[in-house]
């Protein structure tokens, strides 16, 4: 599995063409097929990094595309297609985690151990110890910092784009990322 930057590979020109095809009833379905081909992988990794489990990530990715398909008429093209899809995927992931916390009666204080357990139970890992350790370090972060760190570090997303998706100011996002890096640094220091 290779890392694929989400926004880095986005070509706005192609997206515009895709959006135009999505608006036409005759080409809408076929265009949506292209949307799935283009965005399933980056969206999957964003979801997977949030929920840490392939099966859950797979379900949430399906839900994301189902919701996108269900409300495609309401997508006016004011936001980027990728931003819109990312928003749906993140909302799905956050809602899922909240539901799981309630279902398993997990308090916010126990969330860290809950996430670490899901990482350790994950079947689809490549055996990279350092990567696994980094995942555990990320699991210690609060939800917002975790999101920001994943978007910045893995997806190399610009703060402006993150701001559109998360509805948070650029300054606050920079501060969140800085704090997240500090905490990860501390995590590795504590292990030495």
């Amino acid at each position, binding site marked *: 599995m290779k890392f694929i930057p989400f926004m880095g590979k986005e070509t706005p020109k192609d997206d515009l063409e895709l959006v135009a095809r999505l608006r036409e009833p005759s080409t809408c*379905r076929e265009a949506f097929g292209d949307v799935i081909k283009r965005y399933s992988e980056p969206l999957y990794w964003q979801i997977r990094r949030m929920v840490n489990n392939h099966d859950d990530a797979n379900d949430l990715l399906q839900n994301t595309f*189902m919701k996108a398909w269900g409300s495609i008429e309401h997508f006016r093209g004011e936001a980027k297609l990728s931003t819109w899809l990312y928003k749906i995927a993140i909302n799905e992931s956050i809602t899922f985690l909240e539901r799981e916390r309630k279902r398993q009666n997990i308090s916010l204080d126990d969330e860290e151990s809950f996430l670490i357990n899901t990482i350790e139970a994950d079947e*689809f*890992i*490549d055996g990279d110890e*350092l*990567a696994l350790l980094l995942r555990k370090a990320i699991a210690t972060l609060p939800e917002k910092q975790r999101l920001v760190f994943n978007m910045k570090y893995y997806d190399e997303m610009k703060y402006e784009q993150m701001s559109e998706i998360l509805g948070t100011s650029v300054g606050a996002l920079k501060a969140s990322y800085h704090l997240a*890096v500090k905490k990860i640094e501390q995590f590795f220091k504590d292990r030495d």
Partner: protein
Amino acid sequence: MNEDKNILDKVNRRSGMTTPENYFADFAEQMMQKLPEKEEAIITKPVTTWQRIRPFVYLVAMFAGIWCMVKMVDLISTGASLQTDQSAEQIVAEAITDESFIEEYCYEDMNEYSIMESMYEEGIDSEEITNLDTEN
């Protein structure tokens, strides 16, 4: 921080996670099969008369509201100016200089006891007046 950056560089953005074989290719195919058909014909609801005239009614109501507010402000400001035209002292001074006012508001209210009292203060004997009445 540098040490952390080194660690992050070492990880080289690989998440350490994998997926089943051909997952993404299969996913796109399966997802397309699951997508429900879109209804192409959009059913449009008939527009009622109220829905048609509603904006105009709101506009008229808005102007009526503004007119009422202007009228109210005008009335309040006129009332305020009436109160400030003449001060209380001026009104009292005018009333005192008016003889009929004194008669109406002071003398008419005097009772017998107060007349007798003021006569006594003036040094007039009330019995003399009574005798004068009987003599006449």
